[in-house]
Every structure is written in structure tokens, then in C-alpha cells.
């Protein structure tokens, strides 16, 4: 069974540009989460989807971040426009209801 996959693995962009990160959860996992780790700090929750619905988006830092999960399968996280402080590693995780979260390999975002 394939694990959680994320694309790209690394993205380097200029301040003010737009970047879209993609997450493909484990097949059959209705729950999908986004987290990020910035500047060597702790990993922090961004938002949680159940199928295509946003269950909790309390961790989204501001309106420059937009997450979607059309059709309840893969999810995208768009940052527009990117700022220097957005640099970090963005993780996606998925799980079945009542199960354990499994994490993807992360996308390392560098904003110059």
C-alpha cells in the first residue's frame, strides 16, 4: 500500500510569487491534515479535512494560504503571495476515522 505522497519535495521561490503544494493521502483515508515546521520550531497544525470538507482550519496563519480538497481525494495548499516567513517544511498526514495519522515526506519551501 502506498503511503502519503507530497509534491514537490522542494520548492524555491521569490517573495511575492505563488506556490502550490500537493498531497495525495493513503487510499481510503477520509481525514487529511496539513502541518508545517518553520525555522526549526515545533511542527504546527494548519488544517483538517474530512473528505472534501474543512473540519478545522484554526491553524491557517492568514488569508494568503488556501487549502482545497476537491472530490475528497488529493489536497492542495496554495500560498499567494509567498512571504519570507513562509519558509519551512510543509507536512501532510492522513488517517481513517479513529486511526493513527501517517505523515508524508514533506515539502521544503524556501522563499527568497
Amino acid at each position: 500500500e502506498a503511503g502519503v505522497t507530497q509534491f514537490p519535495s522542494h520548492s524555491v521561490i521569490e517573495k511575492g510569487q505563488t506556490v502550490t503544494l500537493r498531497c495525495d493521502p493513503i487510499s481510503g483515508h477520509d481525514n487529511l491534515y496539513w502541518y508545517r515546521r518553520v525555522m526549526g520550531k515545533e511542527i504546527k497544525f494548519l488544517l483538517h479535512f474530512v473528505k472534501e470538507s474543512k473540519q478545522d482550519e484554526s491553524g491557517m496563519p492568514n488569508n494568503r494560504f488556501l487549502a482545497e480538497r476537491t472530490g475528497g481525494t488529493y489536497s492542495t495548499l496554495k500560498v499567494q503571495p509567498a512571504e519570507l516567513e513562509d519558509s519551512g517544511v510543509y507536512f501532510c498526514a492522513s488517517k481513517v476515522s479513529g486511526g493513527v495519522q501517517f505523515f508524508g515526506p514533506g515539502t521544503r519551501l524556501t522563499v527568497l
Partner: protein
Amino acid sequence: GIQVEQSPPDLILQEGANSTLRCNFSDSVNNLQWFHQNPWGQLINLFYIPSGTKQNGRLSATTVATERYSLLYISSSQTTDSGVYFCAVVQGAQKLVFGQGTRLTINP
């Protein structure tokens, strides 16, 4: 919200040594997980352990929920054990709240 504190922040050991990593949390939790972030940045599930003790090879973990802490033991450390170890808890809502991690360096 719930606070999660890990100690020590950094740990440097020689290959073959044993280590104990600690995770304290400020309130009762539904779930506790330990992760290893390897040098490539991947987060690897180690244990799901809201209470009790589990063992997997050279690694074991114990959570004492009533006293709000969990311990991760690594025996006979190998250089491949190096990386950052995270503890994360779930309280009520389904999101994980992470500690700041313990950076473990195993020297040959």
C-alpha cells in the same frame, strides 16, 4: 491549549549507548504518538501510545497518562538513530499538538 514539552532539547551519545527521551504534557490526552524525523526530513511513526508500554526492537515507550508524561527509550544506539524525535498529543479535537523535539546525535 495543551502544552507539550520535550527534554532534553539536544542529546549527543556514542554508538552503543542507551538514551531516554521525555515528553510532558499539561492536560489529559486521547492519544500520544512518537515520531522520528530522519536526516531526510521524513516523519516516521514510532509508537501510538496513549497509555502503557510498548516495545519495537531496540525502541520502547511508556506513557503514564495519570502523571502526564511519556518516555521513549532507545537501547544500543546506532548512527541511524540520529535525527529529531517528536512527541505529539491529541486532546479532544483530532489535530496533533507537537513538542519542540529532541535532537539526537549518535557518534560512531
